[in-house]
C-alpha cells in the first residue's frame, strides 16, 4: 500500500458518533418500478460503523443509497437518517438533511462545466456565493487528502477515471459529513487505483470515524476494508495483525432478490453456510 500525505487534525467528537445511535435505519422498505426491486429491506447502520453492501447487479444496492438520501421514495416501509424520517419528508425539507451527508456517485457525477476547485467547494460556495480564501484553503486540504492538490484548476474532463473518483471523494468529505455513502467507488478502476481509493475510505473511517454505507462488487476491496486499519503514525493503511482484537467497525450486508440474506462481520461471512453466499464468495 502506498503512503498518504499528512493528515489534518481529527474531527472533534460528534454527538452522533458518540452516542452509538443508528445513523441510518431501514425498516421493511420496499421499492419497485415495473417489477419489485427491493422487497423487504431492514437494517441499521450504527454511528461510526461502515457497512459494505454487496449483491449481484440489479439487486437494488444503488437504490438503497438513493433511498437513504431521499432522492427516491419507497413504496412502503420507513427510512430514518440522522433521526429524521426521510421516507415521509418533502423535497424542500430534505435539502438541509442532505447537507449532513456525503455521497460519492458511481460515475463521480462531477459538474463538467466547473473546475475541480469549484466542484469540491460546491457546497461551501452555496453559502458564500464565491470562492473565498478560507474556502480555497479548505478545498486544498480536501484535495490534499486525496492527493490531488495539483488538479485544482483543471476541469473534470482533463482527469483520469480514478482521479475523478478521488475528486468526488474530496467533494463528499469537504464539509465533514456525519454519514458517507459510496456507490461502487472502485468500479471500473485498475487494482492500483482501487487500492488507493480504498485506503482513502479506510482513512476517512478510522481518522474521522465517519459512518458510511458502501456499495461494492469487488470482494477484494470489501475484505481489505475489513482487515486493514489506518495507522496515523505510519500514515498509511496497514493490515490488522493476526490474533489482534482491533475493531475496524466494518460489517457486511448482502442482498439477494430484494432481500437481505446476510448481515455480519467478515469472519461471519466467511463462515456462512448459505449456498448463495458461498457461491458469491467463490
Amino acid at each position, binding site marked *: 500500500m502506498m503512503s498518504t500525505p499528512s493528515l489534518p487534525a481529527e474531527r472533534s467528537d460528534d454527538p452522533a458518533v458518540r452516542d452509538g445511535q443508528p445513523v441510518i435505519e431501514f425498516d421493511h422498505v420496499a421499492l419497485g418500478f415495473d417489477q419489485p426491486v427491493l422487497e423487504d429491506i431492514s437494517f441499521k447502520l450504527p454511528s461510526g460503523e461502515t457497512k459494505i453492501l454487496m449483491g449481484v447487479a440489479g439487486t437494488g444496492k444503488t437504490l438503497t443509497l*438513493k433511498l437513504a*438520501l431521499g432522492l427516491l421514495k419507497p413504496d412502503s416501509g420507513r427510512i430514518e437518517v440522522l433521526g429524521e424520517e426521510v421516507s415521509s419528508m418533502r423535497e*424542500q425539507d430534505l*435539502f438541509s438533511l*442532505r447537507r449532513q451527508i456525503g455521497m460519492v456517485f458511481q460515475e463521480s*457525477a*462531477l459538474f*463538467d462545466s466547473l473546475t475541480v476547485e469549484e466542484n469540491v467547494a460546491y*457546497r461551501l460556495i452555496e453559502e458564500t456565493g464565491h470562492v473565498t480564501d478560507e474556502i480555497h484553503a479548505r478545498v486544498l486540504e480536501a484535495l490534499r487528502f486525496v492527493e490531488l492538490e495539483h488538479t485544482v484548476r483543471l476541469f473534470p474532463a482533463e482527469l483520469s477515471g480514478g482521479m475523478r473518483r478521488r475528486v468526488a471523494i474530496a467533494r463528499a468529505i469537504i464539509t465533514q459529513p456525519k454519514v458517507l455513502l459510496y456507490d461502487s467507488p472502485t468500479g471500473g478502476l485498475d487494482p492500483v487505483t482501487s487500492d488507493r481509493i480504498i485506503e482513502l475510505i479506510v482513512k476517512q473511517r478510522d481518522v474521522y470515524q465517519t459512518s458510511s454505507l458502501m456499495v461494492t462488487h469487488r470482494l477484494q476491496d470489501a475484505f481489505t476494508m475489513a482487515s486493514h486499519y489506518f495507522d496515523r503514525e505510519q500514515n498509511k493503511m496497514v493490515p490488522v495483525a493476526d490474533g489482534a482484537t482491533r475493531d475496524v467497525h466494518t460489517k457486511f450486508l448482502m442482498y439477494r432478490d430484494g432481500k437481505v440474506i446476510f448481515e455480519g462481520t467478515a469472519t461471519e461471512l466467511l463462515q456462512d453456510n448459505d449456498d448463495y453466499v458461498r457461491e458469491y464468495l467463490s
Partner: protein
Amino acid sequence: MPTFSLTDLVKEQLLAVQDYSLLAGRSIGNVFTRPRYVADTLLQADMIGVGSLPIVVLTGFFTGAVLALQTSSTLQQFGSLSLTGQLVSLSMVRELGPVLTGLMVAGRNSSGMASELGSMEVTEQIDAMRAMGVDPSKKLVTPRVVATVVMLFFLSIISDLVGLAGGFMISYLLLGLDANQYWTTAYQSLRFGDVFMGLTKPMLFGYIIATIGCYYGLSAKGGTQGVGRATTQAVVAASVLILVSDFFLTRLLMGFFHY
C-alpha cells in the same frame, strides 16, 4: 411483447402535464424565497439576451423589409401606399416582433436548456446537486426563467425597432416614400393597447421557452439519445405553445382593449 394501453398513455400524458405544472409553478415561487442565484441569472441573461441579439436583429429587419415589400403592391392598388409605415408598425409591434423573436429564441435557447440540463440529468449531476442539498429548480430553472422573460421583453422591443427600420429601407429606397411620412404614420398608428399587447406577449413566450426547455431537460432519460430527443421535443413543444398561446392571448387582449 409489450401491448399498447390507452389508459397507460393517458396516465403518462397527465403525469407529464402535472410534472410540468409543478416545475413551472415552482420556478415562479422560487423568486420569492432564498437563496436567490443572482450571478446565475445574470449569466443566463447574457447567454440568452446578448447571445440571441444577432439572430433577432436579422430576423426582425428582414421581416419588416419583406412586410413592406409584400404589402406595397396591394396598398398601391388602393392608392394607400402612404400607409405602409402604419401597416409595418402594427404588424411588427402587435404580432410579428414578439412571435418571431419568441420562435427564434425558442429554437436557440429552449434546445440549449434541454440539452444542457438533459446532459446533467443523464450523468447524475442533477442527483449530485440534490444530494449536496441544492435545489435544482432554484439553481437551474428559476435563473433561466427570469433571464428569458426579462431578455425576451427587450429583444422584442429591439426586433420591433429593426423591423420598422427594415420596412423604412424598402419604403424609402424602393417605393420612394417620404421618410417623415413613414415614421409619422408608423408612430401615430400605435395605441396603448398595441404596445401593451406587444410587450405582454414576449413575457409569456419567455416563460414558455424556459419552462419547456428546463422540463424536457430534467425529464431526459436514456443517455445521449434521450438528450437528443429531449432537445427536439423542447423546440417543437415551445414553438407550438408559443403559437397557440399567441392566439388566445391576442383574443383576450383584443377583447380587453375593444378592438
